[in-house]
């Protein structure tokens, strides 16, 4: 069987070699590799597209080996890996049109709210925990857009470090 992968690599010498080695080493075959060093994504990493062929077991071993080596796999067979992001909002969340806030977050490309928990404090400001799933690599864009939404609604955002 065949498998298409997209990996993120640091732009330092030797990275591509260490990605290619496990393929033959673990009994799979490399079909194509696309490595454009002059393109960097928003994390400052270089994406590499690979297609490899082999027995399912061998391909699985290659994936496991990549995870051991700490390579980020951002796409397998066209399915973009998601990351979970938690964020906290504080302010007059309900009064400043909660529904609109959620719509605006969901309107960010590749981002979906999957969890929402709010603590109300009478007339005072409330606190909400929002969980979103974002396509790999969209995190910084999400933070930036969320900051804009929060500013417009005078909310304090507490983001992941």
């Amino acid at each position, binding site marked *: 069987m065949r498998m298409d992968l997209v990996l993120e690599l*640091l732009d*330092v010498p030797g990275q591509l070699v260490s990605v290619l080695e496990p393929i033959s080493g673990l009994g799979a075959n490399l079909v194509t590799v696309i490595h454009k060093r002059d393109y960097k994504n928003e994390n*400052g990493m270089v994406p590499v597209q690979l297609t490899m062929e082999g027995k399912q077991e061998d391909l699985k071993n290659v994936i496991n080996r990549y995870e051991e080596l700490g390579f980020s796999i951002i796409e397998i067979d066209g399915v973009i890996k998601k990351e979970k992001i*938690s*964020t*906290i909002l*504080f302010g007059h969340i309900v009064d400043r049109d909660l529904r609109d806030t959620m719509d605006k977050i969901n309107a960010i490309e590749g981002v979906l709210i999957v969890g929402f*928990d709010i*603590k109300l*404090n009478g007339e005072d*400001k*409330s*606190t*909400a*925990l929002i*969980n979103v799933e974002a396509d790999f690599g969209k995190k910084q864009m999400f933070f930036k857009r969320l900051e804009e939404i929060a500013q417009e609604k005078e909310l*304090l955002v*507490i*983001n*992941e*470090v």
Partner: protein
Amino acid sequence: MDECKVIIMGFGAVGQGVADALFMKKELIKEKTGFEVKVVAAADSSSSAISAEGLDEKLLVDTKKNEGKLSAYPEFGSDKNGAEILDAVEYDCLIEATPTNIVDAEPALSLTFKAFEQGKDVVTSNKGHLALKFKDVVSAAEKAGVEFKYEASVGGSMPIINFVKDTLSSCDIKSINGILNGTTNYILSRMTSEGSDYEDILKESQELGIAETDPTQDVEGIDAACKTVILANSLLGIDATYSDVKVEGISKITSEAIELANKDDYLIKLISEVSPDNLQVSPRLVKKGSSYDVSGTLNMATVKTDLADEVSVIGLGAGSLETASAMLTDLISILKNKN
């Protein structure tokens, strides 16, 4: 035996810590550098003690503690203060530990420039002049051909500036994220462990002497922002000043926010972010069990590098002897370079 005459300007917690530490480590400094360190003057905000023959470090601290001012130092007490002390006695190195002033950086700025003009090395724990005029101060030192060291200005005893400059010298520094204020870390840690409100813990921290009577500098993130500027300039080469930092303190953090964060296995910490596209102090979510999970008055910093990936340091961010340890380390490295 070579001699190194020092003047200690500022005799609060840090200045006294330096005197105590010098008393304890004289032999060690002699062994490591071949220099005998002698305190020829020490000054608080209104008075001083001056003797070219050298003062007794223990007696300086006792005089300040018991009499409230250094002019009460037997025989060598003086009403001289401020910059005139730098003219009153021959010295080699100024140990500058006056309080941080984020409005006009005085008296640290004038004292430091004067010492440079006199061709003297300076070791400082002060953040004001570095946060407001980093480039000016550092280039003045270079022009004067003297050494200027400021490890104690960030993170107290936690090594960060010399650590990155010397120990990680093979690496390019991409960014630094850290907890650079012990008081707010203490308050947030207690809010987390006890589920109490911000105001209650702040009050208790003030009673314990961990937070100051006017806690603004700490809780509104001003202190952390100064340190952010110092790291940006000294380690990432970013020409920034205090007003370039986006600052949000911890005074809006509620126990509800901490509780909600806890649900997802997060803690809330006041994080300084130092990167070429963002200088920011703000409350952030950090994973429990991660390197950011340090409690009490501890400071930490994670340095992102090109070769060594991430390296983290942890240490006590404040305290008299702790901060003095960083100043003594700076003094020792200056003396080592003289050999």
